[in-house]
């Protein structure tokens, strides 16, 4: 087949385009950083997940070890059932504690795992029973105000007895 300069140009053009897509995927996107290989799935029930979303990171000691796979509402217990995919390399005891934290003051929410002391390890399909809900700012403020008010009242009553 006879080759022309146009073929060369078009070949270079297509190669450039593929390089750009690879560059976007590897340098700009998260194709390299999210390479969690083999995973196993565990679930956790929360009374309130706050702003947790699917694909949110799961961290332990600050290291990303998994992702939130799905969140569904369980109408039997009125709880949020969160499915978590964890990297197979990392094993956790069955009494692991799952908390929902916020990265920074306005950052995204993630699940933090704190290992317990149990010998048995979490297996695929297990449920993490120790969970702590997301902090809801309104609740926190109302608790604070309430305790402040009751403090005042008790100090008033102690004054009255004096």
């Amino acid at each position: 087949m006879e080759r022309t300069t146009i073929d060369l140009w078009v070949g270079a053009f297509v190669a450039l385009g593929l390089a750009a897509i690879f560059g976007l995927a590897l340098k700009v996107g998260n194709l390299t950083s999210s390479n969690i290989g083999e995973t196993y799935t565990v679930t956790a029930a929360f009374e309130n997940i706050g702003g947790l979303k699917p694909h949110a990171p799961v961290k332990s000691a600050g290291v990303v070890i998994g992702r939130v796979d799905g969140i569904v509402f369980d109408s039997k217990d009125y709880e949020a059932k969160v499915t978590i995919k964890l990297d197979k390399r990392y094993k956790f005891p069955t009494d692991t504690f799952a908390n929902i934290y916020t990265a920074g003051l306005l950052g995204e929410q993630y699940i933090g795992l704190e290992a317990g002391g149990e010998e048995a390890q979490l297996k695929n399909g297990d449920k993490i029973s120790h969970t702590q809900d997301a902090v809801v700012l309104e609740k926190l403020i109302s608790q604070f105000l309430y305790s402040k008010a009751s403090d005042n009242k008790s100090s008033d009553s102690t004054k009255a007895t004096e």
Partner: protein
Amino acid sequence: MLKGFPGTLAGLGHRTIEGIWRIGAGARLFFYIWYYLLESFKRPRLIVREIFATGVLSLLIILVSAFFVGMVLGLQGYNTLQKYGSSEAIGVLVALSLVRELGPVVTALLFAGRAGTAITAEIGLMKATEQLSAMEMMAVSPVARVIAPRFWAGVISMPILAALFSMVGVLGGYFVAVPIIGVDAGAFWSQMQASVDFRDDIVNGVIKSLVFGVVCTMIALFEGYDAPPTAEGVSRATTRTVVNSSLAVLGLDFILTAFMIGA
């Protein structure tokens, strides 16, 4: 005032019927192109030549404007972000706006202006000089020989151009943010990688550019094929290509974004 009214009404009706007729004819042309799918890929040389004309020759304008768009995004983004003390997020801003929106959309608009007009004028002139009728006389289908290769070339070129636009735009943003303004290079890239998702952002951008490629090329081809075979007709068709492509791209972009973000 009433005197001109029946004329206006008739003109409105005429335009509506004309518009519907053109949509139908365009759809027919679209199906013809698919009908000649095998035939046009049997002659890859024709497609390669058209990729050269539409894709390779558009490279310069695409790459230069991408670099400038990226630099402007970097400057503007930094200006606003530093007020909130988060100038490191500049990489995220530049990359997300380019990959999701500006890459596909601006590429499609430039493509309509650079390559779409060329296609329309070429085909319109072929029709005006009766080259298309001559082909039919020789039992060569103009759709298979002239229209279909240009269509596939446009559909192939657009995602490549859009990906290059996004990549060069990010480099432009990097050029402004890191060496000129002094944002930390590590923070620039790592924050970008943490928030740009491959499937949600990059693949969706490629899908958008594919759709724009089909729409822009199709409009350019149809306007050329449908142009009245006169000098004035070709010039009007060329104008219509730019106007209709731009409107279609911007309108479709909204619909596609609504689908992608809503999902």
